[in-house]
């Protein structure tokens, strides 16, 4: 790799390839992660899902950076030569190869499509946000805006400066204390930048097979909503019944079984939230150690296998 543009293109291609491979590997192993995260509180579950989704791209970047430090190569790379040149070296990706050009070109195309798709989505989202804001009015309290519709809705919109919206239909139905709880739920989303985290997870899981990506996103969203429900419930003396009344009055919760399931889930989460400090720290330690070990193993494996793979692909 002698000139900078080619070096950058090859680096980008390498990052795309390694990210894809690691993403597919982690997607296959996601059911195992689900089982491991299941006993943990909602906050740790959502963080676990997010970290798991961005791990491939972060590790791929670390590997590319490590490859650029040629002197370190000898610690994990088996000795091999290219056209008589032996010793430690960065991945040898020759210029004079039609397959190499094709592979790098495809990698760049994939990256460009993803970047364009992300830009288009952000633009679309911004247009909708602007329109929604134009149609809304300041609410009774300064921390939300009111939208004139009979539908019973409350939502938090936006990435970097999230705004809470409430429908007039919902405001008319709620008592002042219920309104406080609904706003507390949405405020919890805003304070944690949940929409931004959802965006990151959605894009990080783009390479995943559709079914697994959808499951990951659903699990993540469910954990976020549960965490925010707990914040709202805390304002009302941890009343599960209160939460069910406020959030399950619509048709999708009219089913008795759905109500029971939701009640059981919320009660379990409230028990987890009341765990002792020692238990919480033990869970956090397991969480950090688990992801630390996973990241270390994946990093070493990718460092060893990525070099010959990239050279083979660009041959």
């Amino acid at each position, binding site marked *: 790799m002698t000139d900078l543009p080619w070096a950058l293109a090859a680096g980008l291609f390498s990052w795309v390839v390694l990210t894809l491979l690691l993403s597919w590997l982690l997607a296959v192993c996601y059911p195992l992660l689900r089982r491991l995260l299941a006993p943990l509180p909602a906050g740790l579950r959502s963080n676990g899902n997010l970290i798991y989704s961005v791990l491939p791209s972060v590790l791929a970047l670390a590997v590319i950076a490590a490859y650029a430090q040629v002197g370190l190569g000898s610690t994990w790379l088996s000795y091999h030569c290219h056209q008589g040149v032996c010793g430690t070296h960065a991945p040898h990706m020759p210029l004079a190869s039609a397959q190499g050009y094709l592979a790098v070109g495809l990698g760049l195309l994939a990256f460009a499509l993803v970047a364009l798709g992300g830009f288009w*989505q952000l633009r*679309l*989202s911004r*247009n*909708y*946000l*602007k*329109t*929604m804001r*134009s*149609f809304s009015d300041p609410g009774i309290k300064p921390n939300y805006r009111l*939208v*004139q*519709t*009979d*539908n*019973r*809705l*409350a*939502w*938090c*919109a*936006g*990435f970097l400066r999230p705004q809470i919206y409430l429908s007039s239909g919902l405001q008319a139905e709620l008592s002042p204390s219920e309104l406080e709880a609904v706003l507390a*739920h*949405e405020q919890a*989303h805003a304070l944690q930048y*949940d*929409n*931004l985290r*959802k*965006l990151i997870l*959605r894009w990080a899981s783009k390479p995943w097979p559709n079914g697994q990506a959808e499951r990951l*996103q659903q699990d993540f969203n469910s954990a*976020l*909503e549960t965490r*925010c429900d707990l914040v709202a419930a805390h304002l009302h003396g941890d009343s599960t019944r209160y939460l069910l009344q406020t959030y399950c009055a*619509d*048709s*999708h919760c009219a089913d008795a079984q759905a109500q029971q399931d939701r009640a059981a889930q919320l009660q379990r989460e409230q028990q987890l939230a009341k765990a002792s400090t020692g238990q919480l720290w033990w869970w956090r330690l397991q969480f950090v150690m688990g992801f630390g070990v996973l990241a270390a193993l994946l990093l070493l494996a990718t460092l060893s296998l990525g070099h010959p793979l990239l050279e083979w692909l660009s041959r």
Partner: protein
Amino acid sequence: MPQLGPREIEVLKVLWRSDTALPAQAVLAELAQQGLSLSTVQSTLERLNRKGLLRRSKVSRAYHYRAAVAQSAVIGCLLSDISSQISDGQLAPMISGFMDFVCQHSQDPQNLKQMMQDALEQGLEQDD
């Protein structure tokens, strides 16, 4: 729902607040603090009329405008658009806590859009 710019939304809000049809000058007076010109307001009204969101009638030599669809219908269409985008996965990260509407919408996906389409068609039929 047709794409609406900020100025078009402000004009619509003025017309929704009014009980009677308004000429362009009256709309301009309501939007005085925005520093718009009469021609700007007239062209905005004309655009909204072409989009089927207004009805107009001639009084003396001037057109008087009124909204052809209610505010709740327009907002319902906006929410319907957003929820269909959420269902398709485009806007999902942007909005938290929207799922009640999505559930309702997914059970009856055409209802709001049909309501808006009907309102637009009625508006067009009654236009001068």
